[in-house]
């Protein structure tokens, strides 16, 4: 674990991309092979399952540290990270260990099979052998919340540097459903395995936001436009005798969408589609919340299948008749896709929008919400299907968000880098003479603003509930959001999609914040 902890310290101590890549590449050249595989797995989001509940870990840590649980709980928000809090309160280790990262991962898997007393003994033993960063990392792994501030793309670049392999090819190889415990470094990175390849998706091509409108993009005839749907970006693989559905987060979600199976199996083997998963009824998508009910669960009850039937609106054809089409122009891929898919099916092409000039397209964009979309996608007809977020050929041109002016009524401190600062706020609007809370938001302001607001919160606290403080209802913020739905679970009777703070309205007194009627009026437009 020491080698891995050193890698972590090197990555954690710099914000320079070049240094991060160099540290990772050095690790990939010199670390034991099983540790390399685990590092690839961890940095591509393949986290181990949480072996022990956070509640147990807190209790054991407090007990071992000889402090009451309340004291542990009060220290946690100051540290802002559970794994770190545990590692800091524990006494220094009295034993040693030479166990490697992969050895600890095997130990974590074993923990999951033990009865609780044995599990506790094993965790206490680990805590007594690990110090500093190693203990912190062990806790991160055991709580299943491992992140290292390195994107998968950066990790892939480092791996390419270390092995001399092509970066795009590596990105492809690392996708799919492989188990780090049983996969060798050579098999994963170096040698070809046709069976494993069959379920493997391609790296997704991601768009950049178009901030200044399309005028600078050149002749409209070079571009195609389609709706930007608000669902789950997915890749459908139809190869051999099977089909697979991958989310953009490289999660295999085939089992959760049995209603797509007939249409998927009707595709000829050797087909890969990129598209958007939506809950779809008739000619229009259902709100995102309907789809959300289906993602959280492994199996889908029949009732839910009927209430939120799924559709895949295909954007692109990446493979056809077993041939990789990504290096062919979009216009060609698109034509093949439209020929292959029927428009009324559960798997159908996302319609291409006709337009003659940018002004005409801008007008279509304004109507996006009426068809249940969140804006437009613009794609260069001659463009290839590239890997990752690349500038130039794909642009997302989203609608301006909705926004209201709301009053902050509760504040809570943030986590990690923002522990000790108040960053999570609850907002309210007026209903008659009362303020009704309607959303929480925790992003959109600068660190300097959060610092200033934190100082204000400390001086204007009315009541404390653990880490949450009720504050004087005085500060007004413009809160933006992408969508709004009725909700029986929320006090205001509505739920927002992607709420965030747009700006601090220092100019506005609380009395001039928006009223609940403003939100209700948006509700009817959905």
């Amino acid at each position, binding site marked *: 674990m020491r080698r891995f902890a050193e890698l972590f310290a090197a990555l*954690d*101590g*710099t*914000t320079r991309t070049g240094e991060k890549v160099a540290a990772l590449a050095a690790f990939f050249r010199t670390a034991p092979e099983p540790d390399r595989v685990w590092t690839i797995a961890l940095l591509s989001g393949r986290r181990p399952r949480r072996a022990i509940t956070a509640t147990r870990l807190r209790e054991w840590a407090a007990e071992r*540290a000889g*402090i*009451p649980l*309340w*004291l*542990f709980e*009060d*220290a946690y928000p*100051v*540290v*802002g*990270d559970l794994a*770190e*809090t545990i590692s*800091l*309160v524990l006494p220094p280790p009295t034993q040693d260990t030479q166990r490697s990262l992969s050895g600890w991962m095997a130990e974590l898997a074993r923990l999951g099979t033990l009865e609780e007393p044995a599990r506790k003994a094993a965790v206490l033993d680990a805590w007594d052998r690990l110090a500093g960063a190693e203990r*912190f990392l062990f806790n991160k792994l055991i709580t299943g919340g491992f992140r290292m501030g390195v994107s998968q793309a950066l990790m892939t670049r480092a791996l390419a540097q270390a092995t001399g392999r092509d970066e795009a090819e590596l990105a492809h190889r690392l996708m799919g459903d492989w188990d780090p415990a049983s996969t060798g470094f050579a098999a994963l990175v170096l040698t070809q395995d046709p069976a494993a390849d069959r379920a493997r998706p391609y790296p997704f091509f991601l768009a950049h936001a178009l901030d200044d409108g399309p005028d600078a993009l050149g002749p409209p005839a070079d571009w195609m436009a389609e709706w930007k749907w608000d669902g789950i970006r997915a890749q459908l693989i139809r190869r051999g005798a099977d089909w697979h559905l991958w989310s953009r987060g490289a999660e295999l979600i085939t089992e959760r969408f049995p209603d797509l199976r007939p249409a998927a199996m009707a595709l000829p083997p050797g087909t890969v589609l990129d598209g958007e998963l939506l809950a779809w009824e008739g000619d229009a998508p259902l709100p995102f919340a309907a789809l959300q009910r289906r993602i959280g669960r492994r199996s889908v009850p029949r009732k839910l299948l009927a209430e939120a039937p799924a559709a895949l609106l295909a954007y692109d054809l990446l493979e056809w008749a077993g041939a990789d089409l990504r290096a062919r122009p979009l216009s060609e891929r698109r034509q093949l896709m439209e020929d292959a898919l029927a428009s009324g099916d559960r798997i159908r092409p996302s319609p291409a929008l006709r337009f003659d000039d940018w002004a005409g397209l801008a007008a279509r964009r304004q109507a996006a919400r009426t068809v249940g979309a969140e804006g437009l996608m613009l794609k260069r007809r001659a463009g290839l299907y590239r890997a990752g977020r690349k500038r130039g050929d794909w642009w997302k041109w989203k609608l301006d968000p909705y926004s209201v002016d709301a009053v902050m009524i509760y504040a809570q401190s943030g*986590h*990690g*880098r*923002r*522990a*000790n*600062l108040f960053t999570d706020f609850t907002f309210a609007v007026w209903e008659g003479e009362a303020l009704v809370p309607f959303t929480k938001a925790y992003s959109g302001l600068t*660190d300097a603003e959060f*610092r200033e607001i*934190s*100082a204000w919160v*400390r001086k204007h606290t009315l009541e404390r509930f653990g880490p949450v403080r009720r504050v004087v209802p005085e500060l007004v913020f413009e809160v933006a959001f992408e969508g709004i739905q009725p909700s029986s679970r929320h006090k205001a009777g509505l739920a927002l999609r992607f709420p965030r703070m747009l700006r601090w309205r220092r100019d506005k007194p609380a009395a001039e914040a928006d009223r609940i009627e403003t939100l209700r009026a948006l509700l009817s437009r959905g």
Partner: protein
Amino acid sequence: MRADVLSLTPQGLRCEAGGFHIDPWRPVARAVITHGHADHARPGHGAYLCTPEAAPVLRHRLGDVRIETLEYGLATGIGATRVSLHPAGHVPGSAQVRVESQGAVWVVSGDYKLQDDGLTAPFEPVRCDTFVSECTFGLPVFTWPAQQAVMAEIRAWVEAAAAEGRTPVIAAYSLGKAQRLIAGLADLAPIRTHGAIEATTAVMRAQGLPLPPTEPVTDPKAQRGRLVLAPPAALGSGWLRRFGPVATASASGWMRLRGIRRRRGVERGFVISDHADWPGLNAAIAATGAGTVFVTHGYTGVFRRWLEAQGYDAHILATEFADDDAEEEHDG
């Protein structure tokens, strides 16, 4: 606070029987000062009383004010009270204030640490009935590594930065922390210093503290790779950019927490503090034998509850030294 030896007034902590205040934050006639940090030694008082070791820095920071000094351990009568100063171990010259009035003994800790930094007279426990203790780091996550170990970490880091062609810059408070590093890293002398640190260091050197030579930064780009010390505020400024490639670090108890290190935007944190850590606070309080403890600046709510559970009669003293749970304004 009860009508006791000390009580809280808008000006600060006041001793009625003696007619003086301790580290008052608004102007008073007569102030007893524990040490020279800005939140303890404020301008505008009629008369100041501190240790002879603290006086030069006070004079340097406050200008031409009326300062009387009192040696550690010697008692003097002020009004109807006996007052004496005792080593607090925080920074050179820092003191705890013992006040005896009508048979009751109160001690105000000021800021303190139990670690011996090699430069400051070490903390001495003073028996008392009532102890007013700071608790800047009053949570069990704050425990300090040995100073030797941290100095070794710093040396290795300085060497690595120099090998990469970067200038290592450590943010350290200009009174106390900076001199502790200058003395503890004597083998790296002359360490280069920001003007604010150089000025305070010169004052302390002149009063006889064993401080190795330092070198004020005049040409930032010269001597790339040599260690530079700067006050925390200088790290976010244009001053730093003139050095070319740098490696940044902070030396503070707050560096124990990864989130705070990242928020301060330094690449490396060295856990070295002039305040007591959790075991230190508990040991210091126990050693006073006090039954009543007032806690001030730091995690007062949590620490008070903890002390109460340990059997103390514990209270919070709402001073203006630093905010409740804010670490921003207070040096670590």
